């Protein structure tokens, strides 16, 4: 048994991948609490996809180097996150429509750019589904720094973000700078997405934001407990997912997301059964 657990860890790439996946899982899960409570899942999904043209340009300019990719993705994420907010505020269309327009347009632009390169399919697959075992030391450092930054900001503005999620009218009567705080939250989501790109990729990103947080939502009754439990679920799922990926030879991002989904399903079934049993007992 111990052998089964230790064997994959002898590879440095496996250790780096695991560290990155756990870090990313924690950051996304904590931030994901707000994504779930404020109903921003579609926004998160869209934002992840909207990063693709930034990745493509970084890829074309940098010729495959990792670090420029990160900064291009970061720039695109922040610009398109604030852009979605601006369009939905000023144009006379609903927010989810604005998100849909920008998301699909940006994603198409990204695919168009990448398709101009010869090794098109392989590179696109890495962007879409992640490549956690390709995480380098430098990547890990960037992930830790920016992921840590996200957690610090979430911690500092805990009570303000909580009020904005629960009662925007109270936020207004208390004179909280709601617009500024909303933009900070959006930028945090953008940063979390960029940090997670290598682990799960663009297409599965939303699962990291939503699934562990939603699982914790079913099981807890206070916001900080929800965040803590979501982080724990995400970290454990990342580790289990990578082992599954190693032994069953499946894509690592998909394995991590499937583990998160399985945990959610168990929690969901257990809580619904529990509720039904209690209803019968009454």
């Amino acid at each position, binding site marked *: 048994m111990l052998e089964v657990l230790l064997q994959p860890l002898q590879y440095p790439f496996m250790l780096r991948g695991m560290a990155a996946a756990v870090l990313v899982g924690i950051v996304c899960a904590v931030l994901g609490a707000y994504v779930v409570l404020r109903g921003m899942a579609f926004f998160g999904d869209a934002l992840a996809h909207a990063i693709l043209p930034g990745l493509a340009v970084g890829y074309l300019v940098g010729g495959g180097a990792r670090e420029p990719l990160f900064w291009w993705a970061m720039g695109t994420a922040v610009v398109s996150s604030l852009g979605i907010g601006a369009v939905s505020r000023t144009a006379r269309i609903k927010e989810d429509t604005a998100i849909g327009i920008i998301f699909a347009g940006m994603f198409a632009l990204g695919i168009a750019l990448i398709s101009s390169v010869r090794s098109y399919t392989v590179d696109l697959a890495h962007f879409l589904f992640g490549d956690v075992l390709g995480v380098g030391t430098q990547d890990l450092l960037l992930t830790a720094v920016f992921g840590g930054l996200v957690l610090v900001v979430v911690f500092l503005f805990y009570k303000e973000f909580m009020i904005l*999620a629960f009662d925007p009218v109270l936020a207004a*009567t*208390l004179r909280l700078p709601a617009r500024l705080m909303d933009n900070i939250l959006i930028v945090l989501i953008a940063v979390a997405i960029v940090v997670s790109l290598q682990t799960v990729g663009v297409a599965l990103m939303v699962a990291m934001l939503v699934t562990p947080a939603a699982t914790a939502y079913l099981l807890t009754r206070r*916001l900080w407990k929800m965040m803590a439990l979501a982080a724990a679920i995400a970290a454990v799922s990342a580790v289990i997912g990578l082992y599954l990926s190693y032994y069953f030879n499946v894509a690592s991002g998909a394995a991590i997301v499937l583990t998160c989904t399985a945990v959610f399903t168990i929690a969901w079934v257990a809580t619904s059964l529990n509720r039904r049993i209690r209803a019968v007992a009454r």
Partner: protein
Amino acid sequence: MAFLDRFRNPNLTFLAHPHPHSPDKPILKVEGLTVEYDSGAALENLTFELQRGERLAVVGPNGAGKSTLFKVIAGVLRPSRGLVEVAGHEPGGHICIAYVPQRTQVDWSFPATVADVVMMGRTGKLGLLRWPTHHDWQLVQQALDTVRLRDLADRQIQQLSGGQQQRMFIARALAQEAELILMDEPLTGLDSRAQEELFSVLELLHSQGVTVMVALHDLKIAGERFDRVMLLNRRLVGIGLAETVLNPVQLVDAYGSHLRLLPVVDGTLALGDSCCDDGEHDHA
């Protein structure tokens, strides 16, 4: 440390109490207030004053602009024209106003305990980057004592009854140290016992000099439990003592076709506010 001092400057609205109060001014003064939406005017040319410690019932048919009026006073909504002063200053910047939302507008499954929600009221006093101290938790406990919810402090908010949920929001207003509390339809869906409990808490607020403005459907309760009654239907039909405001002429004026006038034995009139969806009937 000039930067830090500037950061903690009390004029930065979300850090501290920004507007000093002028104690000689009425707690609320509204003059020529008009609010226009794309679909038309929600409030037209309202003028009235509210004194400290007063209890005002706001009645009128659905769509009369009660919620709009409350949101303007709370500073959530900007008026199209006119003047609103809270304790002699504009509403933007007052954290002494508490708005108790309609129960249907609250996400009751939010992961928060009763104490968590009441603590939200302290956020304005705390300011950014500061965590609740022992003193703040004590104030929360006191507020919960006042509304008799101390035993339920650790419950998730969904586990409260309708009346308890209303009292929780009053406790939050107390924790906020609010001087003017606006309550939007707090009686909707409460049984008579829960209503009684709510009124005993309002009585307590009255004795502490807190001003309350309550939107209602029930004209009888408005007349019996409040100092003054405001009859609203986009414009101000009347404000004053219940006996003078709630007369048949003004009631027809406010409620129009929604009103049914029924002659009864002792010669007074019973009024059916037929616009109410949950089958409430109001009597005067």
